[in-house]
């Protein structure tokens, strides 16, 4: 027999009280974990959405729509390529990546494809204004700037965006989407004729499940030449820092480029972001409440436990238990409660989130193992804190209590 045995015996002797106090802490941690898990999954969903959409700001010709942008409808107007320089030199903050593009529909072997002109990374870098970052083929964030990491959306962070940056693209080379390649029966090194000019396939792009799979990418200036539109583009895709977008990046660009129309694709996900922020705020209010309720539940339990056991404590002290033993008797019990509440709360909270998430937030929810640490920290913290006062009081119980004829 030892201290731990004694604690276990005592805990299970009073199952009902133990269960009640365990439930307060369990429910609290369950709520914390489920809310956090759903919020996190929702944020991940937003992030994935943004990644799927690529750039979150589009600079389009005034008459263009997002639809015409996706359809590469050349009729909806065009922009001067000089806008890219203008933007870069403007000193507007919050633009991580600028990708000028010119797209047009093209008939090859009786099928319609979209030919998109892009600027490879090496040419972007050669421009004096370009500092850091890379021109991303699809405009997805390569490396968000430092301040972006601190905003509400965890762009960057743990998940690595697909690295599909075109470092080099010669004027006689093309990159070809996965689907287009199989339709046209092309592979790396094959040649392709476009408007009478011959191109070599530099690479077949991996499937992305988007319209990009049916695109052919060539050097922007070559496409301008083919389409006979020198110095023209029909979109600048911008990866904007989310925080800056909210802070008025769009009106600033609008003022700078009068012929352009600035759109945030992000407006689709904006509502989701708002929901997340709200969730997060409520979740903190909730957590405080839980700490209060769970804490007082445990405190109450430990407090009355000490009171009920005064005579036992006095007897133990008469038999020669030091104050350290008495403190351990209660603290280890609290530790058990805290650990059990933390682990149990994590499991039920995660299960709840995974099963209810799709109904509540309309998103698939995946478990978040890192929350286990937080759950344990809060749970054990509450239990130990709530035990501190009663336990200290217990260790000070006068052993003469043992002589009272209660």
């Amino acid at each position: 027999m030892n201290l731990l045995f004694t604690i276990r015996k005592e805990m299970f002797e009073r199952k009902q009280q133990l269960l009640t106090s365990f439930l307060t802490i369990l429910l609290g941690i369950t709520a914390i974990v489920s809310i956090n898990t759903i919020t996190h999954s929702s944020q991940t969903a937003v992030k994935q959405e943004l990644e799927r959409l690529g750039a979150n700001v589009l600079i389009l010709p005034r008459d263009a729509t997002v639809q015409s942008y996706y359809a590469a409808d050349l009729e909806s107007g065009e922009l001067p390529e000089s806008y890219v320089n203008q933007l870069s030199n403007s000193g507007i903050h919050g633009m991580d990546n600028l990708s000028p593009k010119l797209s047009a529909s093209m008939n090859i072997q009786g099928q319609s494809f979209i030919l998109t002109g892009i600027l490879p990374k090496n040419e972007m870098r050669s421009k004096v204004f370009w500092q850091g970052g890379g021109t991303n083929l699809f405009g997805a964030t390569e490396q968000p700037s430092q301040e972006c990491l601190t905003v509400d959306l965890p762009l960057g962070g743990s998940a690595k965006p697909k690295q599909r940056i075109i470092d080099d693209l010669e004027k006689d080379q093309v990159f070809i989407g996965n689907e287009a390649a199989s339709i046209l029966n092309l592979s790396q090194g094959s040649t392709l004729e476009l408007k009478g000019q011959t191109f070599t396939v530099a690479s077949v792009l991996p499937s992305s499940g988007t319209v990009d799979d049916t695109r052919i990418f060539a050097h922007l200036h070559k496409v301008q030449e083919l389409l006979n539109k020198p110095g023209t583009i029909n979109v600048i895709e911008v990866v904007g820092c989310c925080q800056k977008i909210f802070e008025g990046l769009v009106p600033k660009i609008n003022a700078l480029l009068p012929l352009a129309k600035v759109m945030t694709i992000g407006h689709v996900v904006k509502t989701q972001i708002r929901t997340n922020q709200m969730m997060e705020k409520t979740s903190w209010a909730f957590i405080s409440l839980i700490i209060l309720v769970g804490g007082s539940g445990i405190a109450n339990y430990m407090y009355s436990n000490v009171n009920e056991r005064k005579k036992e404590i006095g007897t133990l002290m008469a038999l020669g238990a030091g104050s350290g033993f008495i403190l351990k008797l209660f603290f280890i019990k609290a530790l058990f409660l805290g650990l059990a509440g933390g682990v149990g709360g994590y499991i039920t909270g995660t299960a709840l989130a995974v099963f209810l998430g799709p109904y509540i937030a309309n998103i698939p929810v995946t478990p978040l193992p890192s929350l286990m640490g937080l759950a344990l920290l809060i749970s054990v913290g509450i239990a130990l804190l709530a035990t501190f006062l009663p336990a200290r009081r217990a260790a000070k119980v006068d052993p003469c209590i043992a002589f009272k004829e209660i």
Partner: protein
Amino acid sequence: MILSMIDATVEYRLNNQSVKALDDVTLAMESGEFLAVVGPSGSGKSTLLQALGGMLSPISGEVFIDGTSLYDLSCDKRAEFRRLRLGFVFQTFNLIGYLTAQQNVQVPMMLNGDSTDDQLKRSEYLLEKVGLADRMLHKPAELSSGQQQRVALARTLANDPHIIFADEPTGALDPETGLQVMSFLNDLNQEGRTIVMVTHDPKAAAMASRCIRLVNGKIESLNQTQANPVKFPAE
């Protein structure tokens, strides 16, 4: 001299009123003595026992056991002293309800850090000694009060104490079981242990080798029970 109390005064404070429960008491005991403490209710008998047993610090005066001044020790050192040398028997037994009879007897050995094996062996031996070999796995609630007090006696003996302090050990027992407990205490005294026992029971007091009477926190008379049987006022 195994135990001595010199000019000890104990006061309780209750709502700014102080009650003098022990008033300048001096007392000495030789090893192997069996002392009975009698006196009216509220006269300070339990207080005296606790002060002698290192459980209640007097506001003035000293208590020595085996030459150690108890109240010059730290609280935890005093607890250790109690664990190693003193035994306590309570009127209401004070067994721990969630432990079995055997586990209750193991408690002092557990506090000592003895191995489980030793704990089991000795607790078995002691429970046999008090005639409860067949009740080892019972919880206190499943035992009669006489049996509970015998478990408590076995627990007291766990660490083989030199001195046993008993506060009305027969107070909650019927006369027959009370007698049984008294005969155990007598045996322990015969083994050479020093015993201090508070009691209301003249028959119990008669078994002691010496008897003192406490009134209003003062020792009123000292008697050799054999020579001068103590008179007990009707209470």
